[in-house]
């Protein structure tokens, strides 16, 4: 195995958390608590490093005059605005009214607008797929059309019939496929975990 130390760490941590879930023991609980806290610190550090890396990357783009300067200025300016609003002397961090205003008045509407663009970009992508004459694209677009029709919010008998049909598609075909996928993923995860615990490597062995 290429990283035996990593596998051993995964093995020890996994067994420790598993034992803590099964056995009531204060020493074990303290150890598990320590491990969970370490995992939280690592996750927080990784998130912070990700943000710092983005800022450095965009700052480097501006400094060296490469890439998209407008985008870089917007990213750095946006970060600076939120940081200044939250961390200025007397600021209340994320709960500061200025940060709240930026979130409610700028970030939420802009985020929702970007998500709204999915309407256009998804339709454009489906048209390109169909234009390539792929059979799976025909099926995908056909099913999407049927699903959209079933979701029409109509009243009366027609609306009730459409809603019933939508529930059936969700519970039976979509539910069956998704549960199959989830069971498959769970099995693969269990196999990979068992191979890691037993030190059985793959191609890098």
């Amino acid at each position, binding site marked *: 195995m290429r990283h035996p130390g990593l596998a051993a760490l995964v093995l020890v941590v996994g067994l420790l*958390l598993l034992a803590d879930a099964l056995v009531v023991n204060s020493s074990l609980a303290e150890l598990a608590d320590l491990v969970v806290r370490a995992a939280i610190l690592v*996750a927080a550090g990784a998130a912070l490093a990700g943000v710092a890396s983005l800022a450095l990357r965009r700052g480097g783009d501006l400094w060296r005059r490469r890439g998209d300067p407008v985008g870089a200025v917007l990213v750095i300016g946006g970060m600076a605005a939120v940081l200044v609003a939250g961390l200025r002397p007397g600021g209340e961090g*994320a*709960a500061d009214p200025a940060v709240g205003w930026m979130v409610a008045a700028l970030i939420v509407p802009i985020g929702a607008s970007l998500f709204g663009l999915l309407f256009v970009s998804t339709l454009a992508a489906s048209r390109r797929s169909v234009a390539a*004459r792929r059979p799976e694209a025909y099926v995908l677009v*056909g099913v999407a*059309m049927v699903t959209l029709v079933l979701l029409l919010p109509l009243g009366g008998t027609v609306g009730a019939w459409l809603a019933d049909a939508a529930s059936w598609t969700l519970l039976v075909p979509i539910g069956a496929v998704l549960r199959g996928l989830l069971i498959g993923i769970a099995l693969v995860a269990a196999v990979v975990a068992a191979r890691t615990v037993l030190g059985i490597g793959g191609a890098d062995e």
Partner: protein
Amino acid sequence: MSKRALLHRGAPLVLVALLAVAILLPLDDVLRLESGDETVSARWSDALDGLPEESGILVAFDADLGTYAEIRPTVRVLLADLLDRGGQLAFVSLTPEGRALAVAELGRLARADVNPRRLADFGFLPGAEAALVQLTREFPEPIDDTAFGRGIAEGGFDRVDAILVVGGNDLGPRSWVEQVAPRVDDVPILAVAPTVLLPELIPYTATGQLEALVATPRDGAAYRASVDLENGQRLVPDEGPSVAALVVGILAAVLLLAQSLAGPLLRPRGAESAR
């Protein structure tokens, strides 16, 4: 400019105009957003009726910016409903986006003069699933020093009567069922989530691991219609999406998809190259 190019350029404007007209037209009698199936709203009512008086509810606010617009009307009515029932709400977020949205909602509640002693804010906890596990062991100190918040910080989940998960794409009800439910005793989990999460959440609802779930705009509208708010009415500023605009959007998408399918299916494979 050719007729085809004119059509291509004019179509978005026509769609915007149609949406504007649809929003203005009174079509509520013809269209119905509320789901005819009252199972979901009845399940919610049962779950909320089963809570004790002045119940302490942990609101796990982890919606995301993209999908929050879909669930926002339902979330706001639900918070108002819980406060109307005498509930106390403790907010916590495990995603940065969720925290940003939670701060905005807390600000809205404060501006509406909700009694601050009935609210607690535990802020943002980094670490995603690991933070959920840690939360079952120990709560952080609340940001605002209220008796309700201190009680939860000291007593943990023993002081929590229910968990309300406002889910998003990054961290949703599934994580709470997997990481928290096995570690705490008898705390029901209620959830509001965007439609995209519905297929993976249905099994949890069927097994009762999620006590109640709203995950479609139609079920959300049915729940909102079933709630009779008193004092909480002032906390619900918007009436939800325009149903007519939804219909226009769906029909436009169906027409465009049909048109994209019709071209290749009706034209023989070699026709374009021959032309």
